């Protein structure tokens, strides 16, 4: 990796100040994306702002009908949290399938959501549950937050501090892993909340997206059979050496069916 300056602030305010002062600074949380990029010399930040010392970004808490997860909470903590398991078991289950043991003990929800890798797991949960992304400046609805591959509504220097999840009546997640990377090849997060049914698809396309036809089908009949006949169009989906867009489109239907089945 190239040389960079290193900062470890202890408050969000200090972190934001450091990021604002240097447009080439990059925040680092669990480092599961940034560190490999640095090691491959694909990224050359002037400084790294290490968020791991900021206490206010940590912790999982229930606030009425919402579950609030701090940006620094690791996947392993979400997977094993009694609060999460009680409120949104599908979210805990999903977090327990991210990467491998090492990744889950380093990677954080804030890092994953802010990075918005199309093949990451969390964006599907955030969009599928209709969560709210909380930053140091504002609150952003999931529908407005994700803007395609590695792109979000975050402004330069704006820091994601927490994700607030509404507690659904039912939710489920199923995915097919890319055989090599074990990132998501096609995943579907389904949720039924008091505001309606949401279906979010990750892995298959250039960014996480909602599947309107499946949402309608499930609103009418919350059952795996309801989505079994809904075809995802392959147009615009990813195609690579691991599978065609048609294969991924097919997997979306299969995973939707399985997600609904797992939601019960």
């Amino acid at each position: 990796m190239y040389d960079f300056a290193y900062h470890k602030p202890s408050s969000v305010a200090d972190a934001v100040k450091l990021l604002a002062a240097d447009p080439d600074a990059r925040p680092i949380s669990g480092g599961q994306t940034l560190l490999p990029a640095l090691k491959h010399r694909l990224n050359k930040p002037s400084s790294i702002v290490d968020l791991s010392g900021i206490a206010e970004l940590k912790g999982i808490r229930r606030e009425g009908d919402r579950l609030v997860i701090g940006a620094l909470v690791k996947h392993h903590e979400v997977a094993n949290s009694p609060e999460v398991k009680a409120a949104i078991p599908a979210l805990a289950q999903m977090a327990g399938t991210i990467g491998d043991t090492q990744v889950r003990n380093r990677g954080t929800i804030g890092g994953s959501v802010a990075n918005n890798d199309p093949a990451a797991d969390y964006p599907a949960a955030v969009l599928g549950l209709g969560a709210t992304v909380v930053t140091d400046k504002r609150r952003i609805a999931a529908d407005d937050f994700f803007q395609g591959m590695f792109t979000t509504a975050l402004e330069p220097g704006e820091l994601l501090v927490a994700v607030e999840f509404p507690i659904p009546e039912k939710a489920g997640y199923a995915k097919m892993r890319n055989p090599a990377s074990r990132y998501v090849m096609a995943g579907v997060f389904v949720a039924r909340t008091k505001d309606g049914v949401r279906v979010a698809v990750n892995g298959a396309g250039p960014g996480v997206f909602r599947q309107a036809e499946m949402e309608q089908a499930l609103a009418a009949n919350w059952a795996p059979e309801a989505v079994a006949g809904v075809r995802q169009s392959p147009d615009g989906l990813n195609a690579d050496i691991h599978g065609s867009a048609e294969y991924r489109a097919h997997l979306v239907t299969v995973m939707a069916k399985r997600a609904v089945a797992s939601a019960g």
Partner: protein
Amino acid sequence: MNVVAPFEGIGASVKRKEDLRFLSGRGQYTDDIDRPGQTYACILRSPHAHALIRGIDLAAAKAMPGVVAIFTGADMTGIGGLPCGWQIHNKDGSPMAEPPHPVLAQGKVRHVGDSVAVVIAGTRAQARDAAEAIEVDYEVLPAVATMEAALGAGAPRVHDGVEGNLCYDWHIGDPAVNAAAFRGAHKVVEFDLVNNRLIPNAMEPRAAVGDYDPTTGDYTLYTTSQNPHVIRLLMGAFVLQLPEHKLRVVAPDVGGGFGSKIFHYAEEAIVTWAAGKLARPVKWTADRTESFITDAHGRDHVTKARLALDKDGRFLALHVRTLANMGAYLSTFSTSVPTYLYATLLAGVYTTPTVYAEVKAVFTNTTPVDAYRGAGRPEATFLLERLVDVAAREMGMDRVEIRRRNFIPADAYPYQTPVALQYDSGDHVATLDEALKVAQWDSFEARRAEAKTRGKLRGIGISTYLEACGIAPSAVVGALGARAGLYEVGTIRVHPTGSVTVLTGTHSHGQGHETTLAQLVTDRLGVPLAQVDIVHGDTAKIPFGMGTYGSRSLAVGGSAMVKAMDKIVAKARKIAAHLLEASVEDVEFDRGTFRVAGTDRTKSWGEICLTAYVPHNYPIEEIEPGLEETAFYDPKNFTYPGGCHICEVEIDPETGHVDVVNFTAVDDVGRVINPMIVEGQVQGGVAQGIGQALLETAVYDENGQLLSASFMDYQMPRAGDLPPVSVATHATLCTHNPLGVKGCGEVGAIGSPPAVINAVVDALKEFGVRHIEMPATPAKIWNIIHADHKLAAE
């Protein structure tokens, strides 16, 4: 009270002596070696598959901090290219095309990753920073990324002097006899298949440290090699012209090789040469990306085969035409793999009376291809065992029955095949029957039906194979074009108090030689295992040996040790006879005790050893003091392990995912020295075979860029991809080496891929699938299910 020592000799599953150091982080690998004043090399690599180098501007790079020197091909004058160790001849008798393989590019690059320049600097990061500052003016040329493209009319030439990109057009067998047999056939099965290109991915990337002492003129190369003497000979004599007494090559602990660390690579010559130029040590360590694009790849065959059968399903003739990808240059043993290590195995375990094979080796703008675990034999086995399954189906015969009907019977050994080899021993019915029993073959249909109730497609596949290893008789391989002898050497150094140091020319890079070879000494001399150490991997310490590959260490290296121990025992008996005042003929030796036959007069091993080094009362007129013997052993034949592998899979028809649910390996590896190590070797080989069958493949785009150049896209098997593997051995002994051993390092990787694919094809039989190319990925299987047949969505 009698204390019975635990049995540690031949047949004991003793724990591996070397594992304490490996598991506690105390192994000494090449990258762990740091020499005083050491510098670091970074190789600038070609980003293009094929390009002319019009100019290299080093000015900015030379001004970078910490830079000690930068060299390009222009600086390496008077240096030879990397040699090829095996000359193949064309059908017409002319020698193969053997274009130069420069250490650093000479005006042209021929694959992505080709070496263009080397920066030597004070730190690794400084070397890399400066390499990035080198400006190379490339004129990009059209590349040939596939054999089909390379052989096409008017294709760009990888090497200007090699017409049609053809390295050789070789054959084995009698075409007239073969053609006649086809004319009389009841049925001819035609079958095309690909053997996918693999990337070895040893856990430890390649590394090399060059050192030079200007006061003595001595060079030392520390390198990740399976055969340090071979590297010393190739690099010293052919590349750098350094006399061997001035060049020491050390291959310390090495973290996996699988063949990829047999070969002499450019980086070894670069660091050794540069250390001499600069009179400073130079270290180079590959990163994982460099490993992907510069370690020699494996396999990569495209084959058309025809099998003639009579009306009873007996094989009458086999005709095989194979294209073998050499990549951009001839790696050290590349040329032997698709010829003498492949086509000579095409009889397999069958009595096919005539086999005719034609092999064209092709240059392409890709990473060089060479031996990878099994080397040629997995390719032959995959072809045969898939072909036999296809033939069974097309003849309407049972898959097991067609094999039985064509097996070489146990009483036909020694058996002369129509493709040069003479098999010494084997019992294919025995390994088949045992595997069928362990795998519960007969009750499979019930498991298939049960899986169906869960929506899964279950299949079972079998492979009955034989391979040739324990390489090799020097005169035989010499006649076939090898430019090396393939004997092995062992020195038994008995110390005055009776402990033993063994110097072996073989090299352990994961196989557990420090245990297995020590067990041979314990078994023969009665010295406890803890008092036997194995020394390997350092040309300054060991006699000239040929290293480890082709499952040769025990069959050839172990046999050399046995010969040396015979000499030790013969001399020790003379010493004992002197002390016991008996005639030598009357002195017996059995695991640590010398006894005058039929009496209670004995001398212990320790007494004899001490006497050899303190020869006060000694037959000094008759024998010399000391107790150290060396033997070289040149095998009389290859060894022929074989066996039966059975694989059971379940396919999720919705996703195409294949789950290997069971794997049975019953192998005949000859006498087993350490059953635990054999089991581990077979399991590791099977893991690599499953990797080839289901997961791994190197993919190039049409411009010669490697698309699967990292673990993000190249799927190595993980623990979760692997089934429980039940391993059993059924030994028939090798008849021509003193231990009766055959070798177990490659059988897993050779026997397993066709068993897996046969199982996948069986699981998909309702869709009329004739063949599926490796790797059988989920997407590929989904395409098969959904392209033509009932589960088609639309």
